[in-house]
């Protein structure tokens, strides 16, 4: 028998982040640790596909969510309510069953001794929670965070406990300029020291980081969000063009699966 990487789990808890701020839109979802040896070697940046039973036949796809915390007994993910699926997920109660498959994808590079600059936009903060929690030398890590919702909406406490965090709240268009300025300064400084920069967030943010990364010839990895049906490389729905430095020359410029070959890519190995 195959030790299937699919399992069904009862929800342990769903905690809203900003309960005082009207209707909650950000949640921590706690599940039992899924069975299987794959979970002994999961990497931050990897994700799971999660599909609550309450999706019925109406919502056929699972939803990709980053793996944030894995302990001996629990798996925690953070999510933001965006559309139909996450709206239903916001109603999950303890004991409700969800289907889950993973860990999926490749995960971020981890270099103990290099300076690491984490760049997050909005819910793009999620994969970094696991990253800072499992980094053996967190003093080498720092983070820049741009967000539109109040800071309490995001799992920042799980981060600034370990690493210095600079936050930029974007409330009006001018704020974005400040953030981009800081981004450029910090990325050039980090590149001068041979550091590694890791970014996750909305597409325009990743495009800005990619451009800077290429200009500075810095070592930068981007975690992409694409719409996913299968999560395992089978449907070819989530593809993005491979970049000019893609390891297989025949595939350069041609579509590769984000779910399987990513979601984390070196800047020069992907086109956006």
């Amino acid at each position, binding site marked *: 028998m195959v030790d*299937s990487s*699919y399992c069904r789990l009862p929800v342990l808890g769903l905690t809203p982040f900003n309960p005082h701020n009207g209707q909650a839109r950000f949640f921590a979802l706690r599940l039992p640790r899924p069975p299987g040896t794959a979970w002994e070697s999961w990497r931050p940046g990897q994700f799971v596909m999660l599909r609550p039973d309450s999706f019925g036949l109406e919502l*056929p796809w699972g939803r990709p969510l980053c793996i944030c915390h894995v302990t001996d007994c629990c798996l925690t993910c953070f999510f933001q309510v965006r559309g139909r699926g996450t709206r239903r997920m916001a109603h999950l109660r303890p004991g409700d069953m969800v289907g889950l498959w993973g860990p999926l994808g490749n995960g971020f590079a981890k270099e103990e001794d290099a300076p690491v600059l984490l760049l997050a936009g909005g819910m793009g903060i999620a994969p970094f929670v696991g990253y800072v929690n499992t980094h053996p030398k967190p003093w080498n890590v720092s983070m820049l965070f741009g967000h539109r919702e109040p800071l309490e909406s995001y799992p920042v406490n799980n981060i600034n406990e370990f690493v210095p965090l600079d936050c930029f709240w974007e409330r009006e268009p001018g704020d974005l300029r400040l953030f981009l300025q800081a981004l450029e300064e910090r990325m050039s400084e980090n590149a001068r020291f041979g550091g590694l920069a890791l970014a996750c967030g909305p597409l325009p943010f990743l495009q800005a980081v990619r451009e800077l990364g290429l200009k500075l010839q810095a070592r930068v990895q981007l975690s992409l969000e694409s719409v996913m049906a*299968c999560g395992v490389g*089978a449907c070819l*729905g989530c593809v993005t063009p491979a970049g000019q430095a893609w390891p297989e020359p025949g595939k350069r410029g*041609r579509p590769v699966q984000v779910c*399987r070959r990513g979601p984390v890519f070196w800047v020069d190995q992907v086109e956006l």
Partner: protein
Amino acid sequence: MNLAVVLRGQTHDLALKNPVLTASGTFGYGLEYAPYGELKSLGGFVVKGISLTPRDGNPCPRVLETASGMLNSIGLQNDGAEDFCTRKLPLLPWRETAVIANMYACSVEEFARLAGRLDGEEGLAALEVNVSCPNVEQGGALFGQDARLAAAVTSAVRKAAPSKHIMVKLSPNVADIALIAKSVEEAGADSISCINTLLGMALDLRARRPALANVVGGLSGPAIKPVALRCVWQVARAVRIPVVGVGGIVTAVDALEFILAGASAVQVGTGNFMRPDCAFRLVERLPEACAEYGVASLDELRASLCCPTC
């Protein structure tokens, strides 16, 4: 209970250990799903559509979730027949389960060349001919929408691949699917699979744009099950060759309904996205479901539909 089935073709039979296959384009090349079940427990699997030369497919977004289904306009991305035969097929467990190649081409001649290339591959149990593709030589009309063209493709593939079981996969986007079915049977098909996706469309009202970059795409999933059942029923009544039911199949009960409608085997497609062990589980659950619904054998079930117009 013995679940083995033989699809008795006009030229070649296709023996399956059970009637559960997976549908092309939803199961990759099989190995993607190896972490979720034993591939050899399946009756077989149909791999992603293969063309003579590599194709990049359509621009993104090219999949979209819809109510009880999904739209796709992947556009047949694949690395071509040569890569499939030399790099992918050797890794597949074809000695233990039926591996079926799904073929895509833009002209009758190209279909024949592709079939000729695949015919010699020992690892392929059958060829499934996707006639839901545009004929570039004749203004882009779909082969599957014209009985004459569908027959021309079928007989060209039949001739070019004399050693293989030929399964022709029909499109539901036609006025009379039974008519197309009869013409591919006459042209030498060994079996018929139906249905491929239904042509659909979705819009983004805020952006006032189509939701898919390709504008239109194929609808699949539980939403299309009633259409698929109707097509299987109509086709099974019209031809003598076996029919393989595809469209919205998720559970063992769905599979039994298709067999009752006249199918000899089934394919699981979008269900694989709902849970990656969907097809494996369906195989496991089939005996229980038969017991629950008093099904003595699949043959018995197939001949037993009571309806006023049968």
